[in-house]
C-alpha cells in the first residue's frame, strides 16, 4: 500500500481516487498519524472497532438465520431429516447474493459520494450492509434490495451529511421502502420461505399443507377465539420454538437465543446502551400485558401472552440492534429510558391494534427516531431549569 501511495497524493496520477485509497489503507492498516494535542480522549475503540464489534454481535443471528432458512426449506419440501450442514449450506447460498448486493450498492454509493466531496470514506455502512439482508425477507428479488438500499443510503444518509448525521436508521429505511413500495413481496405465503432449489441443492416438491406465512402473518389473518400458530407444514408451534428461532421469518429476527447472545456481546463491550435495550423490553412487556388483559378475538394478536409477544416477529431484533443505534437514538440518560420505553409500547400497539401492519417494530423505531432529538431537548432544558431553580434557592 505504501508503494502505491504517492500516486494518490495531490499531484499524483490517481489523485482523484484519494478517498478510495485512504479508505482502503485505514481499513487494512492502523494509520501512522494520530492527533498529538487537544482534548481528545485517546482510545483504541474508534469508529471502525465499534462497527466491527456490532458486526461480531450480529454473527450469531446471521449464522442461525442461514441455518434456519435451510431448515424451513427442507421442512417445506418434506425432508426434515436432511443433515445440519446441508441446511446451513442452503441458507448460506440463499443469503449470500443479498449480502453481496447490499454491500456493493451501499458501499458503492458511499465511495462515490466521498469521492465527489473529497472526504474520507466513513465506515458506517459496514453494519448497515449486514443488517439489511438480516431484516429483508429471503425471497425479495435482488434488484429490489438494490433499489431500496440505494434509496436509503442516498435519502436517509448522504443528504443529511453521511455517517453519524442521519436522522433515521438506514437499514430500517431500506426495509420500510420495500414494505411500502412492494407490499406483495413483503408479506404473505411466498415471502419468507425459500422453496426452490439453489444450484441443485435442496431439490424437492413442496409438501402438502405448506404455508409460508410467519406466525405474526397468521395472526394478522386469524379469525376466532382460540389461537394456534403453526409452522410451514401445519404443525403447531410453541413459544419455545419461537425462542429458539425455528420459525418462518426474516433471516435475523427469528431466534431470540442468537439475538440475546448478540445483546450480551454489545452490552459487555459497552457498545450499546443497556438503558435503551432494557426499556424497550419493559415497554413491550407493559403494552403486551395491557393488550393481553383486554384480549379480544377482534385483535387476534392480543391473545398472545406478553412473553410470546416478545419472542415472535422482529421485536427483539429491533430492540437489540435497531433501537440502540447511537446516532438515531436519544443521548441523554433519562431520554434513553423514555425513547426505549416508547419504542416497546408503540411496537406492540401497532402490532396488536393496527390490522394493516402485522409487525410494528420497524415503524415504532422509525417513529421514535424522529422524536429522539425532541426528547433530548426536553430532558436537557428541564435539567437546566431545575439547576437554575436550585441555584436561585441557595442564594
Amino acid at each position, binding site marked *: 500500500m505504501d508503494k502505491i501511495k504517492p500516486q494518490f497524493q495531490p499531484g499524483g496520477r490517481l489523485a482523484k481516487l484519494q478517498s478510495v485509497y485512504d479508505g482502503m489503507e485505514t481499513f487494512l492498516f492502523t494509520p501512522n498519524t494520530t492527533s498529538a494535542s487537544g482534548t481528545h480522549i485517546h482510545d483504541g475503540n474508534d469508529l471502525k472497532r465499534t462497527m466491527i464489534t456490532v458486526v461480531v454481535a450480529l454473527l450469531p443471528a446471521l449464522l442461525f438465520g442461514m441455518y434456519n432458512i435451510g431448515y424451513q426449506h427442507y421442512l417445506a419440501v418434506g425432508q426434515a431429516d436432511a443433515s445440519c450442514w446441508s441446511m446451513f449450506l442452503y441458507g448460506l447460498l440463499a443469503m449470500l447474493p443479498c449480502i453481496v448486493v447490499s454491500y456493493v450498492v451501499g458501499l458503492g454509493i458511499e465511495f462515490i459520494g466521498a469521492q465527489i466531496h473529497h472526504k474520507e470514506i466513513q465506515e458506517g455502512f459496514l453494519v448497515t450492509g449486514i443488517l439489511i439482508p438480516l431484516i429483508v425477507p429471503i425471497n425479495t428479488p435482488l434488484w*429490489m434490495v438494490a*433499489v431500496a438500499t440505494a434509496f436509503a443510503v442516498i*435519502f436517509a444518509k448522504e443528504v443529511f451529511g453521511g455517517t453519524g448525521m442521519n436522522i433515521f436508521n438506514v437499514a430500517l429505511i431500506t426495509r420500510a*421502502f420495500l414494505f*411500502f*413500495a*412492494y407490499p406483495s413481496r413483503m408479506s404473505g405465503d411466498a415471502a419468507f420461505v425459500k422453496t426452490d432449489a439453489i444450484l441443485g441443492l435442496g431439490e424437492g416438491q413442496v409438501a402438502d399443507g405448506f404455508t409460508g406465512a410467519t406466525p405474526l402473518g397468521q395472526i394478522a389473518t386469524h379469525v376466532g377465539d382460540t389461537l394456534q400458530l403453526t409452522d410451514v407444514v401445519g404443525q403447531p408451534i410453541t413459544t419455545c420454538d419461537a425462542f429458539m428461532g425455528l420459525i418462518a421469518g426474516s433471516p435475523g429476527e427469528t431466534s431470540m437465543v442468537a439475538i440475546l447472545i448478540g445483546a450480551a456481546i454489545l452490552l459487555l463491550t459497552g457498545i450499546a446502551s443497556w438503558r435503551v435495550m432494557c426499556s424497550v423490553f419493559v415497554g413491550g412487556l407493559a403494552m403486551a400485558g395491557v393488550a393481553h388483559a383486554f384480549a379480544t378475538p377482534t385483535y387476534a394478536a392480543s391473545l398472545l401472552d406478553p412473553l410470546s409477544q416478545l419472542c415472535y416477529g422482529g421485536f427483539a431484533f429491533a430492540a437489540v440492534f435497531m433501537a440502540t443505534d447511537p446516532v438515531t437514538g436519544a443521548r441523554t440518560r433519562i431520554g434513553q429510558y423514555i425513547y426505549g420505553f416508547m419504542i416497546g409500547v408503540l411496537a406492540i400497539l401497532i402490532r396488536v391494534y393496527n390490522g394493516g401492519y402485522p409487525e410494528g417494530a420497524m415503524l415504532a423505531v422509525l417513529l421514535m427516531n424522529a422524536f429522539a432529538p425532541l426528547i433530548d431537548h426536553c430532558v436537557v432544558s428541564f435539567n437546566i431549569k431545575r439547576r437554575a431553580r436550585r441555584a436561585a434557592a441557595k442564594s
Partner: protein
Amino acid sequence: MLSKKNKEALFNPLSKDNPVLVQILGICSTLAVTASLKPAIVMGIAVIVVLALSNVIISLIRTTIPTTIRIIVQLVVVAALVIMVQQFLVAYTYDVSKQLSVFIGLIITNCILMGRLEAFALNNGPWASFLDGIGNGLGYTIILVIVAFFRELLGSGTLMGLQVIPQWCYDHGYENNGLMILPPMALITVACIIWVHRARNKELQEN
C-alpha cells in the same frame, strides 16, 4: 408588446423565479394531484387560466380597490373564476374532475395566486399582469408535470393512462413501485428537482 420587463414577467417564473422550486409555494396541491399525469395537466391548466384572468381583473380595478379590503376583493374575484373553471371541468371532463376532487376548489387558497395578485397585479398594468399570470402558471404546471411523469411512470408503469412499461419487463420480475403513488414520494421528487435545479443555478444556493 414584449418589452424587457414583460419578457421577465413571462419567462423568469419558468426557472429562475419558479413559484414551486424557488419560492416553495403551492406545495400542497403539488403533493395531492401528481399521482398521475392527466389530473396534473388539468390542474396546471386550471391554475394558468385562473391566475392569468384574476391577475388581469385585479390589475384593471387596482386603482379603485380600497387597500383596507383588497384581500377580500381578490378572494371574491379568484373564487368566482375558480367556480367557473370547476363547473367547466365537471361539464366536460367529469372523470378528471372527480380525481381532482376538492383541489380545484382549493386553488382559491393556493399561495401562488394571492402572492402574484399582491406582489404584481396591484402595481402593474393588465397586459404585464396577464403575462405574469401565464408565466407563473406555466412555471407551476411544468413542475407538476415533471413530478407526475415520474410518479406515474414508476408507480403505475403508465403515462396518461397508457401502458408504457412493456409486459416483457413484468414477466422478468419488474414490479411497480407502490411507494411512488403515496404522497411522501411527491415531496421527495420535488426535493430531487430542487436539488438538480439548485445545482445548475449556483446563484440560487443559500448557505
